[in-house]
């Protein structure tokens, strides 16, 4: 059972996490290869934040502090050898494909998200972080530099290189319009969907 001090620490963390919870979960998912991986990453980051909470000097800086923790866990996970590598077609069971107009729209959106996740997975972890935080989350370059603990010019360089790699990914994709049958080493892309439509 948690001691009183532990409970107080959890209470403090919950209070600080409240305003950024949804955004942080989404960021973790965007940095990861699947929703499941993203949620797992977020949980790891929360646990680490709980451990290190005594090191937080100013509560007003909690957001960048927590995101820095999230990035640290992300890089740590990126170094781990993955055991769950499967081909993309293995993750797409035709029986799961939706029926009807709404389902078709959802399916298309899911494919787009998968493709984006696959493109991001091909980047260096630090480039992926810069792109996700700046281009998707809307953080400023200065904020990203603080979270990544690097200079502003380093972030700009990561953004430039990351975008160039993404551009090359989509150029390759345009040349080969059969990405469904491409075998990936990046792993299964599993993004949430809506209920099936049976019209």
């Amino acid at each position, binding site marked *: 059972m*948690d001691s009183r001090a532990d409970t107080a620490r*959890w209470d403090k*963390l*919950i209070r600080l*996490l*409240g305003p950024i*919870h*949804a955004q942080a*979960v*989404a960021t973790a*998912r*965007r940095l990861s290869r699947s*929703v499941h991986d*993203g*949620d797992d990453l*977020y*949980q790891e980051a*929360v*646990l680490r934040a709980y*451990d290190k909470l005594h090191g937080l000097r100013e509560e007003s800086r909690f957001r960048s502090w927590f995101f820095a923790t999230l990035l640290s866990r992300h890089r*740590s996970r990126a*170094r*781990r*050898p993955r055991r769950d590598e499967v081909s993309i077609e293995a993750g797409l069971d035709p029986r799961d494909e939706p029926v009807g107009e709404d389902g078709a729209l959802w399916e298309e*959106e*899911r494919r*787009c*998200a998968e*493709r*984006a*996740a696959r*493109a*991001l997975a091909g980047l260096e972890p630090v480039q992926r972080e810069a792109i996700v935080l700046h*281009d*998707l989350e809307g953080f400023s370059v200065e904020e990203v530099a603080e979270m990544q603990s690097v200079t502003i010019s380093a972030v700009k360089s990561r953004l430039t290189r990351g975008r160039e790699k*993404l*551009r090359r990914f*989509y*150029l390759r*994709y*345009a040349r080969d319009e059969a990405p469904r049958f491409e075998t990936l080493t990046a792993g299964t892309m599993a*993004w*949430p969907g809506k209920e099936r439509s049976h019209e």
Partner: protein
Amino acid sequence: MNDRTRMDRDLEALRKLSAQDVADLDTTIQTIRRRGLDSSPTPWYSRRGIMALVHAVRTRPALAAAVLGALAVLVAMVVPVSYDRVVGQDVALTVAGKGIGGPEIRGIAEGLKSALGTNGVMVEAVPGDPGARFVLHTTLPRRSGGDVERATTTFARELASRGYSASVQVRPHVERVRYPAVAYALDQIIRIDVGGKSAASLEAEIRDKFAQAGIPDANVSVTDRPDGGREVKMTVERQRVNDGTAPPPEPVPQIVLTKDGAPLTGGEGFMVKIQKRKENEAVTLIAEVTSNGKSAKIEIPNANTMSDAAIADAVTTQLRQAGIDARVAVTAGKVSIESNR
């Protein structure tokens, strides 16, 4: 659709889908705490710490090597090994003289204690003709035999000037000790600083260090060359009958000559290890030679059936094939290999 549009659309889809179905904070925290507070008897934070350590080691080969290295050092510093170590010097001073008796020998013993700085001297009386001899025994904890021998010899000369006959014998006092492996390793490396020492004093010091390491019979020779260089030769001979019961020979320590604390470099290092292995009356000569970074291992089977000249020729040929220029001499089967430079 161009690539930029496709990329923007994909990222937008990712942004949208990744923000869907996010569990509320309370549910997430409960999941995390359940995850952390597993039913394991190990506190969850310790388990996570251990897992993090294991993960850190697994994912960083350099760190893994460093951790293994640190563990090896720790084991070497903690785990003791048994080995023979020179822990002091046994001194035997034999004194004889006309009319020497109890009062005189008591005075000599006091003088020896004072000269060597030792606490106790044991006196042994050896009856004989024409008179009794007394052997004064003491053990000094000093590992340097040279100093002890010099001090005892000086005292013996003083006795001689007083009309006594005195002789000195100093032997290393060897004991089986149990020290950490790192201490054993350090004992096997003898460092000798050559700075400002004459050939004779250096030779005495090397011989003394060998004796401290349990090798009192090392043949050491240090000579100054006419061209200004200095030649150091060290020979240790061992004979072992491998009948399955004899213990392995004690390892010969490595001598490292240093100057101003740094090992000497640029010299003509030449090391020879010669073995003769006798099996079923057939003798195999094995010579390992290292010369300026080149090394060769030579095996000459049935060496006992060959003439000295044939052995010398075979060894010289194989050394040349290994790129080592050496002078080989064989006399009555005894092989000597020296650098030809």
